[in-house]
């Protein structure tokens, strides 16, 4: 019997596919998310929009708050650690959190190194803006990838940019001859064996979700049609005027992403979406954290 194998770590992400993972800040939110059909929740003290507004250093959440959420729901619970902060990750693993997000939404603890994720039984998800970044994280042991997007903005443009970039770079690799792959690995800054694998299979070796700026059912369906395996919605739900209704609508839009008639139905009368922000007006771009 073996625990913490690649298959088991990547396997949980496979089970989340076609689903919505929602940011929640307390047990009440977590229950609303579960009732709405979330496949998992991300437990954190402040949603990204508030972290952005408050400024200061954002860290791992209080274990008591994460435990309260783990008690409240039967679906998987994820939690965030700062980039490179392996002790925060050790704490979350010891708490039996189901997935650890090494996240640019929190203030990085290390500007040079990400966590050695192979050293953990608990699986990790990491953000990426392009194929090289995704493969570096997978090379460090990440069992799931998500686009970075630009969290807390309610603006999907960066998530779209990151997903399109990864897709285009995979396509380019798949069309290369064997002798081109080493220079591609050099240019991407990615491990050669993973570059070879992607060139051969034409896809990432792990599940890839959309994240960062999704606010509407149509945003979720857009990311699914662009080839994402599922979506994270952070501030977009609990910063809107009617979180429960919006959460349900985003879940349905993710399943019926290719069905415009359903999308009309679920998009109708949702109340106000979270206020959005132009990326160009931001003081801090979270996606630029990590490398």
């Amino acid at each position, binding site marked *: *019997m*073996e*625990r*913490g*194998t690649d*298959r*088991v770590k990547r*396997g*949980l992400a*496979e*089970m*989340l*596919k*076609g*689903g919505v993972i929602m940011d929640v800040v307390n047990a009440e939110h977590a229950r609303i998310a*579960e*009732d709405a*059909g*979330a*496949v*998992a929740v991300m437990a954190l003290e402040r949603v990204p929009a508030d972290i952005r507004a408050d400024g200061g250093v954002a860290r791992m959440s209080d274990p008591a708050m994460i435990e309260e959420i783990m008690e409240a729901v*039967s*679906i*998987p619970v994820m939690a965030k650690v700062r980039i490179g902060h392996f002790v925060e990750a050790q704490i979350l*693993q010891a708490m*039996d*959190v*189901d*997935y650890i997000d090494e996240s640019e939404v929190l203030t990085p603890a290390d500007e040079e190194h990400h966590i050695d994720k192979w050293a953990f*039984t*608990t*699986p990790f998800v990491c953000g990426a803006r392009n194929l090289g970044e995704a493969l570096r994280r997978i090379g460090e042991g990440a069992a799931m990838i998500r686009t970075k997007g630009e969290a807390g903005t309610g603006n999907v443009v960066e998530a779209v940019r990151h997903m399109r970039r990864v897709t285009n770079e995979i396509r380019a690799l798949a069309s290369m001859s064997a002798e081109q792959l080493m220079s591609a690995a050099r240019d991407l800054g990615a491990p050669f064996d993973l570059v070879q694998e992607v060139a051969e299979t034409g896809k990432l070796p792990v599940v890839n979700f959309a994240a960062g700026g999704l606010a509407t059912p149509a945003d979720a369906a857009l990311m699914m049609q662009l080839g994402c395996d599922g979506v994270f919605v952070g501030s977009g739900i609990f910063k809107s005027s009617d979180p429960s209704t919006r959460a349900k609508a985003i*879940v*349905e839009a*993710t*399943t*019926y992403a290719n*069905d415009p008639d359903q999308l009309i139905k679920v998009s109708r009368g949702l109340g106000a979406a979270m206020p959005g922000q132009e990326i160009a007006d931001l003081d801090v771009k979270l996606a630029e954290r990590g490398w």
Partner: protein
Amino acid sequence: MGPVGVLALQGDFREHQQSLERAGAASRQVRKPADLDGISALVIPGGESTTIGRLATLYGLIDPLREVIDGGLPTFGTCAGLIFLAVGTVRDGPPQLGCLDVIVERNAFGRQNDSFEAPLEVEGLEAPFLGVFIRAPQVAKVGPHVEVLATYDGRVVMVRQGNILASAFHPELTDDVRIHDMLLSMLKGD
């Protein structure tokens, strides 16, 4: 013969389609009642049972699914699929079809850190099968017409009741298609 329907509300339905393809069967995604027309067998994948149960209820799939399964359609459920097929859960659970006479316990092996893989002896298979258990349920109580096909550590993890096959583990996460073959042999009437 019609394609195998794979319930595609959420979860690892594509992995099941790949396993079916390797086993030589065509498949079709099922998201609405009309998608059930003409299928020769049905697979209910792994995923989150609360999400799948909620969407199935919302989109009017519960009764049509019950009808085709009770009508004898060869059916295979894995993990969340096992939970969805069962008549009940140990604690409060998501909506269920109630076609398979077992009571299941969700997350019976613990949280993700307790997820594991282990070789299993499966009734009807000669060599062991690699069981991949992810926040897996177990069958806590078995009805009189249910046959136990595999146990792990004394817990029931695979059952069959007539046309219904269900496992707590995920054959679709391996390259081994022998359990999908068991489903396909049912529809050939072997």
